[in-house]
């Protein structure tokens, strides 16, 4: 078996979640890496869409920003940003939104807005956190509407107690709401997060409660590792699986992609 890092395991597992033929609205960073690995391996006909307006793009190197020239030059066409959000996302043409996050809670709510100064005081409402930030994060970007207008949502994020919290300090982007019922009785929105892929495991929402539970452990990861890295009393599926290891081909594609990317992004320095 080829050796691989836990970061590679995460990216390749996330890539495998994408099926060939899907239209995927791609967040920058980990999601973008995973989505492009998918396109270069088992899902050559996955359609990648970035919020900069680039429709069906096939970047040769990973973009640093959501609007690198590479995305436009390799796209089928590029539309305006209002059109992207109105016609393509809100219009219902996106199968899956692929997101990262800074904080995620047991109901898959995402926080990319603020880390509160004192979470104990905040209670279950982000207003207090917003007024009393310890760390100011970048903000929502496309995520709040990707999460509700895409048919489903995949999330990929590194597993740690700081990231996996019982309740996010602020709901930038809804998973299933503070009580797990946030999507109930709402027509015209997607079904929300269907899978979360970390460097330790795969989590999926319980079909009844919508609480995230571990459905698959990555090889070499123990339940204790996950418990230790999760900020709530994490549950494990009764049919807990072991995630398949990356193939040689997948690792090769990922590593070449990252090498090409590194080279491209540092090449500019000489200019």
């Amino acid at each position, binding site marked *: 078996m080829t050796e691989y890092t836990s970061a590679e395991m995460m990216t390749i597992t996330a890539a495998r979640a994408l099926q060939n033929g899907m239209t995927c609205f791609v967040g920058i960073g980990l999601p973008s890496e995973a989505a492009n690995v998918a396109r270069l391996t088992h899902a050559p006909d996955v359609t990648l869409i970035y919020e900069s307006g680039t429709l069906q793009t096939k970047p040769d190197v990973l973009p640093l920003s959501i609007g690198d020239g590479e995305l436009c030059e390799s796209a089928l066409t590029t539309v305006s940003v209002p059109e992207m959000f109105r016609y393509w996302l809100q219009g219902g043409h996106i199968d899956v939104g692929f997101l990262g996050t800074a904080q995620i809670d047991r109901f898959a709510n995402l926080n990319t807005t603020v880390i509160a100064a004192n979470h104990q005081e905040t209670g279950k409402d982000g207003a207090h956190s917003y007024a009393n930030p310890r760390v100011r994060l970048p903000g929502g970007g496309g995520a709040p*509407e990707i999460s509700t207008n895409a048919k489903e949502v995949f999330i990929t994020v590194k597993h740690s107690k700081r990231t996996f919290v019982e309740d996010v300090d602020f709901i930038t982007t809804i998973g299933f709401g503070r009580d797990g019922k946030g999507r109930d009785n709402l027509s015209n929105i997607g079904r929300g997060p269907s899978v979360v892929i970390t460097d330790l495991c795969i989590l999926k929402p319980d079909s009844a409660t919508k609480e995230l539970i571990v459905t698959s452990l990555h090889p070499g990861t123990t339940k204790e590792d996950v418990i230790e890295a999760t900020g709530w009393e994490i549950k494990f599926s009764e049919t807990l699986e072991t995630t398949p290891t990356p193939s040689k081909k997948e690792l090769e594609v990922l590593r070449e992609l990252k090498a090409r990317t590194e080279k491209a992004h540092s090449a500019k320095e000489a200019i």
Partner: protein
Amino acid sequence: MTKFLTLKNAIAEIVKNGDTVALEGFTHLIPFAAGHEIIRQKLRDLTLIRMTPDLIYDQLVGAGCAKKLFFSWGGNPGVGSLHRVRDAIEHSYPCALEITEHSHAAMANAYEAGAAGLPLAVFRGYIGSELPLANKDISSITCPFTGEKLAAIPSIKPDVSIIHAQKADREGNVLIEGIIGVQKEVVLSAKRSIVTVEEIVDNLEVTPNACVLPAWAIDVVAVAPQGAKPSYALGYYDRDNSYYKEWDAISRNRETFNEWLQSHVLTQGDI
């Protein structure tokens, strides 16, 4: 109707202290040269509007031009924080900075509505997000036909819009090509507008549906070669991704930033 001015005269004539100003360009074609000229002319108390503040607003905020920031994603793309923006928000350095925060979908819709002459934007957004707790401008309307509650926010109508584009012809008609973002919308929604361009050409040589802004929809065209660097201009030069990475260190502390400001902006001549 377009006037051709130098960038120095364009900023002097069009931008006033206290204005609401939008310098747009979604990753692509960010009007850095115009931003630097605003810094050199020591404009103050600006309300800065931009979906992604990016380095350009980190620089304007760090230089003390802004009293308010209106945005939807405030990071250094692919790199990290905007340190000058955070320093202003968190420590009022060099002066206090209020913020108004939206999602990308919201701002894209608000620009679209501004260009369309409407007082509000209506979209399916902010469902389950706590951003409405942090931004009192976020309201709703009820569809008279279906009863669906939809998000409503005020349209954006800046005093001044500034964008960068590839080229203008001798009448002042402007071609924007590639990632066109909200550039058309921001010019059409503003009371006054400046377009900086790479060059003036005899003929735009465009296909029938190219994104062309007619001269009579623009107030001033100013030639600013390489005016989008370290952002990029499709067909002219690439994004300087390494610059974006280096900015992290420059902007991280006040001294290195102020040195940069002195040497790279304040002591630079006119274009």
